[in-house]
């Protein structure tokens, strides 16, 4: 990877390369340029993840001529795909070097902070929702119990906005979560569950399942699970999976018509039974 980046910087393929550098034992994001090319010695894949694609999109927006290189995990690539479909990142000016991350039988030595999540405690398992559970397992709870379990999780929220701030596909200038007519201000926990559900709805067809929100959550709310659920609904209704392909997202309402048609109805019902 170091040689490739060096080649790119020297040939001018990219003006700046965003990757991880080891600093005093901490892998930190670093912008490699021709000016600090000796830093490349310390370029590491890094097991921790920062939203490098967000930095790249911001740099690209501020410098219309700059070409940007990026050490890209699979989640980074999905995020870039979504950002490009929403016209937030000029992918023609962003080059990526793919990193070994999400594990599969074909590649064992995956490096990702998500591979080793903390285990849920007993209380959380009994009264809340295990972050490692899958959406089907959660759907099997009785509705009343499911509601109380989700409310237990939501009421821990300290409204730090960390989930939104770290999210690589959150780019709106005006955020509904800060709109005082939509969500009341001045109380903690924030209005539950509306605060979390507003964000969940906005993640539908957009969330790329990177899990950075859950990693950043001081209250350990199973956000990734929640957004997986809304994405499953979008997949069922529109046959759309965020981060894959070149199809515009179903909720892009700019233009005359919605950009995506619902899937053909099943058994005469527009919404599949669940």
């Amino acid at each position: 990877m170091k040689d490739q980046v060096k080649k790119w910087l020297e040939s001018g393929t990219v003006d700046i390369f965003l990757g991880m550098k080891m600093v005093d034992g901490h892998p930190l994001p670093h912008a490699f340029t021709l000016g600090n090319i000796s830093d490349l010695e310390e370029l590491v894949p890094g097991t921790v993840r920062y939203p490098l694609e967000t930095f790249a999109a911001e740099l690209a927006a501020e410098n219309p001529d700059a070409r940007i290189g990026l050490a890209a995990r699979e989640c980074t690539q999905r995020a870039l795909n979504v950002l490009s479909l929403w016209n937030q990142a000029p992918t023609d000016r962003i080059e990526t070097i793919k990193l070994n991350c999400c594990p599969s039988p074909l590649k064992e030595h995956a490096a990702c902070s998500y591979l080793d999540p903390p285990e849920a405690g007993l209380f959380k398992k009994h009264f809340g929702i295990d972050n490692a559970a899958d959406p089907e397992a959660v759907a099997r709870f009785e509705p009343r119990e499911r509601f109380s379990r989700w409310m237990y999780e939501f009421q821990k929220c300290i409204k730090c906005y960390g989930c939104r701030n770290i999210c690589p596909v959150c780019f709106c200038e005006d955020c509904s979560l800060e709109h005082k007519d939509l969500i009341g201000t001045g109380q903690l926990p924030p209005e539950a569950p509306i605060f979390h559900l507003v964000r969940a709805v906005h993640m539908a067809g957009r969330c790329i399942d990177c899990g950075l929100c859950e990693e950043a959550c001081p209250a350990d709310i199973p956000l990734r699970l929640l957004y997986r659920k809304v994405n499953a609904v979008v997949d069922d209704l529109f046959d759309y999976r965020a981060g894959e392909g070149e199809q515009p997202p179903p909720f892009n309402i700019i233009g005359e018509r919605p950009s995506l048609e619902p899937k053909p109805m099943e058994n005469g019902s527009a919404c599949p039974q669940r």
Partner: protein
Amino acid sequence: MECKFVPSVCSYCGVGCGVLFKVVDGKLTGTLPLKTHPVNEGRLCVKGWNIHDFVNSYLRLKSPLIRAFGRFIKTDWEEAIKITSDRLKDIVRQHGPDSVGVLVSAKMSNEENYLAQKFARAVIGTNNVDHCARL
């Protein structure tokens, strides 16, 4: 185009969470939690997430102000310290050393807190020393 990522410690409370500042062309433009920091392990509270806002705030106090004639007047550190010490001396002379209290901070280092109590006990002559974590 210059982009730097600077690790630091949150300046708000005594916990001391690790933060990562994003500096673009010499201007602080963003704050992120330091993922590998042993204290906060990649999490921050709402204040920590917004440090770059107060650093760049136009309301930020950048020089000492002296209240005179009912208004705040800008001054330099030398004069501010001189006036403060004169006033403290006046107060101690008139009302005794126990009329002064020294409040220190959880955010300061041990050494600074030590100096502050030394100042209270040895210079002013009072045991009225307390700490913001106990207020």
